[in-house]
């Protein structure tokens, strides 16, 4: 007999409900529902374009820097201006710090506490999990993640003064001063974080960690370092079989990571994995579908052309406040694992070839990536020192009254896209598609499930009251629902009738 269960997931940012149909303890169908809407795009319409810089960071308190960066890039694209290279470098430093902070907090405070669930009590490694990850912020690594990531945020506050939500990026670069003192402060913050990370999370040097180019090499490291932060995660996760779960869509999407200072592409290239080929990322291939969302259904539409129209009925099975986003008419997957794979990282590529884009690898990437990013941070500081006489800002003289622009950066959870239309000097349309929007997407006009929904099909759920593996799979995506469900643009009555 098929039973429908609604699971309320916490330790995701924001609110998420997942509904599954379970028959014979196997998930047969699934629906992802974001339950909270705020209306940021409506708030932006009619305002001066410069207000983007104050408002869009507030879309998300976790990736505030990424939202600001995407917004400023959309404005620069609309105004057709190139930012000062040093401005790009400062922006990158702050975005990199945000990713490093996020990966520690999400891994040790939000994901790993799942391993402390009483259902795992008889697991031989259970006591180690509790010692390491017991919530709330009691386990060793849970406490360390919070204490240490605080210092990493010093990189951002050196320039921005505060975090989250500071407006130190503007079209043309950054508005804050860039001084030798600030760069020294950033370097000290990285030194301190890296030395903790190497000692406790990796149990080896960053060079040795970056030298693990293959899955076999990694397993050799794991055998020698089982009690490090990364080792505890990796060992327990594999013992649960997380590497066989939650693969989802094989079509992968990334705009790239960290814009180049010459504004010609990204430091780490992105792309679209389309079968065997990697094709360039092209935002013109993005479409929003509203067949199963509470909007009028005009069919797949590009964000610049989006039409605002409420639709209360007829009932066609709508269930989400979020639109279904598709790329090149495919269901795609985004995230740091995807970002690193498309950038050609050897370890991530080796694991992907061996086991596919599974939940275990997805979360492992958040233990691996900070080392990559800290290298990029040091390189960026070195460049800022070398170019210290160059400005960090190219001030605008005047701006057009009519324009449209697109901006994308890599948020901690994957590619973040902003689209802006300006008419008569005011914002006429603003669209934000977050990485979680892609991943948590409902069904599209063709009835295809979104990536998460698909990744749950076939999952064994022995106890629907405690769907632990479902939680592992969804949390392996580091979901951020606060960003994702900001998108509804109309007054719309939610309808919770059964479907």
């Amino acid at each position, binding site marked *: 007999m098929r039973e429908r269960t*609604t699971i*309320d997931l*916490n*330790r995701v*940012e*924001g*609110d998420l409900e997942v509904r599954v149909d379970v028959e014979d303890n196997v998930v047969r169908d699934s629906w992802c529902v974001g*339950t*909270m*809407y*705020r*209306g*940021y795009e409506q*708030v932006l319409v*009619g305002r*001066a374009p*410069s*207000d983007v810089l104050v*408002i869009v960071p*507030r879309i*998300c*308190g*976790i990736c505030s820097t990424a939202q600001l960066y995407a917004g400023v890039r959309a404005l620069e694209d609309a105004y057709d201006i190139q930012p000062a290279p040093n401005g790009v470098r400062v922006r990158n430093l702050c975005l990199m710090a945000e990713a490093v902070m996020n990966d520690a*907090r999400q891994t040790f*405070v*939000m994901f790993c506490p*799942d391993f402390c669930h009483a259902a795992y009590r008889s697991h031989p490694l259970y006591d180690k999990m509790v010692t390491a990850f017991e*919530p*709330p*912020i009691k386990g060793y690594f849970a*406490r360390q993640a*919070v204490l240490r*990531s*605080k*210092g*990493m*945020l*010093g990189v951002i*506050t050196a320039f*921005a*003064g*505060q*975090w*989250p*939500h*500071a*407006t130190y990026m*503007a079209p043309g670069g950054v*508005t*804050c*001063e860039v*001084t030798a003192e*600030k760069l020294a402060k950033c370097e000290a913050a990285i030194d301190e974080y890296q030395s903790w990370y190497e000692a406790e999370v990796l149990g080896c040097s960053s060079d040795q960690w970056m030298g693990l180019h293959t899955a076999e090499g990694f397993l050799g490291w794991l055998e020698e370092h089982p009690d490090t932060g990364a080792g505890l995660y990796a060992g327990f996760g594999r013992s649960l079989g997380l590497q066989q779960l939650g693969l989802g869509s094989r079509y992968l999407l990334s705009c790239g990571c960290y814009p180049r200072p010459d504004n010609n592409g990204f430091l780490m290239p992105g792309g679209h994995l389309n079968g065997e080929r990697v094709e360039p990322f092209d935002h013109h291939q993005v479409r929003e579908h509203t067949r199963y969302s509470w909007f009028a259904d005009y069919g797949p539409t590009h964000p610049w052309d989006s039409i605002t129209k409420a639709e209360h009925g007829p009932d066609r099975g709508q269930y989400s406040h979020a639109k279904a986003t598709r790329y090149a008419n495919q269901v795609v997957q985004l995230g740091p694992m995807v970002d690193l794979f498309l950038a050609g990282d050897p370890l991530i590529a080796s694991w992907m070839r061996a086991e596919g884009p599974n939940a275990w690898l997805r979360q492992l990437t958040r233990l691996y990536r900070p080392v990559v990013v800290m290298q990029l941070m040091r390189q960026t500081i070195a460049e800022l020192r070398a170019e210290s006489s160059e400005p960090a800002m190219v*001030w605008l003289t005047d701006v057009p009254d009519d324009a449209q622009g697109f901006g994308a950066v890599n948020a901690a959870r994957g590619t973040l896209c902003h689209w802006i239309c300006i008419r008569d000097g005011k914002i006429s349309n603003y669209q934000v598609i977050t990485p979680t929007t892609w991943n948590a997407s409902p069904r599209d006009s063709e009835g295809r499930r979104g990536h998460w929904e698909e990744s749950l099909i076939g999952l064994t759920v022995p106890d629907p009251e405690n769907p632990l593996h479902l939680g592992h799979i969804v949390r392996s995506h580091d979901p951020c629902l*606060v960003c994702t469900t900001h998108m*509804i643009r109309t*007054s719309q*009555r*939610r309808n*919770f009738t059964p479907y």
Partner: protein
Amino acid sequence: MLDPVPTFGSQRTTTPSRKAGIPPTLLWIGCGSCSGESMAILGVDGQATDFLDLLEHDGIRLLWHPSLSLEPLAPIVDRVLNRALPLTLLCVEGSIATGPDGTGLFDTFDGQPKRDLVYELCSVADYVLALGTCASYGGIPAAPPNPTAAVGLQYADGQPGGLLGNDWRSRKGLPVVNVAGCAADSDTMVLAMRWLLAGDPDPAQLDHFGRPTFVRPCLSGADRPKCGTAQWVGHSCYGCIGQKFPLSRELLKWTEARKCASELLLT
């Protein structure tokens, strides 16, 4: 270079309930929020205090936080509303959606308006804190055209009222404590909670917007009480959005930004 945000106090307080052996409890609920206060209170460089201090030094028993707790919210809510669990501090983050059309269904919990859950929790809490400008006054979601008909806990459209109404008082007789800011910073949030836990907080220490006296503009200092944003990033926010958003005028001007930056370089 400006000093970092000053520490408003890292005193360790012993609360009356601690002396009696019953730890004060805290339940944190997120509404129409960006999680900014949750992230801020986990700790930011330059802040002397954070959530760990509350858990480890002040001995607060955390009943639930959306990002930190193992279990989902529903079982905890049942026990709190049934008075099986006492609730000392209710921390609310995010604006309260009352739309569409008064239903509150733009933000739901278990199929019901989050607004209704918050209302019930407020009625059983000793003290209620609105953490951040969204929970205090509606914040950016309440800016025109206010798509979700968002309100603060005890303010809406810049006037007393909001979800609870002007006359509402908590079980211990205080109105909602508005820790305004966007995001509110960790030291200020911790100080507000400690002020309440110290016992017998004086409502006269709340200003006419319900803010305790230690709520300051962004990046200000004890010796420099005005907003320090302009000096840090070269421009100021018009009408301090940490206070009472919404504003219908421009928030930021290029000329202002350029002027501040030039001044900075000249000094």
